[in-house]
């Protein structure tokens, strides 16, 4: 076992003081080198021998991994309002209201038929636990996690993201259309029933 030898004396003190100064001086001189925002797989990521380690964050940032789980985004044009995401969410941060369409609305980008409007499609990012379950159950892959992680808000109400593409008036119109259609169907049904009774 190596014993640490205790050294003392004037010259030892002087040399150790000078070596301390040399160390800080070297850091001072090498301060012109800087860390670069490399991706974690880059071979320089853990290999920064000298220079400043700070990244000026809002201007520079280390790239996030592709499978990182950050802010959710719903591409409402591709959403079929199936409510699966809201059902699987462990913290109930997704609120969806749906209104049946009176006719087919259209197709999503993967060819699924859209039959429901979503007057409300809210995700409360303050509640979200970023587990990513909703993105795995989404049948049309319209609900995705984006690389955005810096979205703090002054007012917590702004943490609720509204993804619906219907204005309240449009939503009201769709509801009335549906009600009217259902009324007509009910009337038709009643008429058919009355006709059968008579016949």
């Amino acid at each position, binding site marked *: 076992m190596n014993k640490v030898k205790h050294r003392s004396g004037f010259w030892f003190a002087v040399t150790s*003081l000078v070596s*301390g*100064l040399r*160390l*800080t*001086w070297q*850091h*001072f001189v090498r*301060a012109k080198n800087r860390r670069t925002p490399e991706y974690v797989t880059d071979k320089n990521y853990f290999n920064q021998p000298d*220079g*400043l*380690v*700070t990244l*000026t964050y809002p201007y520079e940032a280390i790239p996030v991994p592709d499978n990182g789980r950050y802010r959710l985004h719903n591409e409402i044009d591709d959403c079929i309002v199936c409510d699966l995401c809201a059902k699987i969410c462990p913290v109930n941060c997704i609120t969806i209201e749906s209104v049946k369409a009176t006719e087919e609305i259209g197709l999503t980008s993967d060819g699924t038929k859209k039959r429901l409007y979503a007057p409300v499609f809210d995700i409360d990012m303050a509640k979200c636990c970023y587990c990513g379950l909703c993105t795995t159950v989404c049948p049309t892959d319209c609900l995705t996690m984006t690389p955005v992680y810096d979205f703090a808000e002054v007012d917590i109400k702004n943490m609720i993201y509204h993804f619906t593409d219907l204005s309240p008036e449009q939503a009201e119109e769709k509801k009335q259309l549906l009600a009217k259609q259902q009324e007509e169907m009910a009337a038709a049904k009643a008429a058919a029933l009355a006709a059968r009774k008579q016949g």
Partner: protein
Amino acid sequence: MLAFVLTLVLLLSIVIVLAYVERKVAAFMQDRMGPTEAGPYGSLQSVLDVLKLLQKEDIVPAAADKNLFKLAPILIFAAVFAGFAVIPFTPDLVPAGIGIGVFYLLAIISLDVIGLLMAGWGSNNKYAMLGAMRSVAQIVSYEIPAGLAILAAVMVCQSLDFQEISYQQGALMNRFPGLEFEMNWLFGIEALGINTTTIGGITTWNIFRAPILLVAFVIYFIASLAESNRAPFDIPEAESELVAGFHVEYSGFRFAILFLAEYSMMVLVSLVAVILFLGSWNTPLPNVGPVSLAYWTTGTIGELSGILWGGFWLLSKTFVLLFLQLQLRWTYPRLRVDQLMHLCWKVLTPIALAVILIAGIWRLLMI
């Protein structure tokens, strides 16, 4: 009056630059970036800090001794600032060229201690009081080795006039009234027979004129760190251990004044070190044969070139010392309070006494 205003403006601008440089140097030595946002490379940071301090509420604690509390920052800054009166900035520019400048400086700087005690006592706060006691104990103790080291330089120069001491340390020595027939010898030893009077430059700086003053310079520099409460002697206001020292109750403009006084003290002790030991406003370049570097880099006394060269050399040497102070701060650990007193009374003071003896003998060799 003009000298007062000019010195104040010069001091304020040096302190502003120093506060910024300190943050940048500290950051670079710790692999950080320092201020980057305010102005190019954060250069306006310290200006904005001062503006912020000026806007703050001026709080005087209800239980404080209001007169002492209010007077203390003024006294502290006035004591330090008064020291600048005798500093020769260029060959013919001294705010107040009095013959006993060194004595006056030591005396007026000691007033600082009273201001510190007033601030600590007037705050009516035990921590401020403890901080003030520590600061005062430290400053009073370290005034002894600092004073002895200065005395060694004074003995070699045989003068208490900063301007005369400055002239002695350069090729212009014979231009000073009363020094027309003085000679400088290499290392101050006439027996060597090498006359450096007209060579000037670094060979006539006090640390070369009488090499024992190199030891005196080191002693003075260490003691000056303690006198300005700088690391590694910053126990009274060790920011990693306590909030602040004697100025813990101060805010706003009064704190700005104390801050200014602290940095002015750093500048002043560095200026005194440069003037007494490192050749004052004299150029470090010697005249070598036909290449009269010393004269070229001194300019003409009484003209603009003399003022500019003198100011340039004095300030650049001062900034080297200030940089060293900053570097020491980020290199060495803080001394414990008993180690501090040990260093002062058992190490520096005896060595300083021995240096005075040797300096006296050396003076005999010089004539």
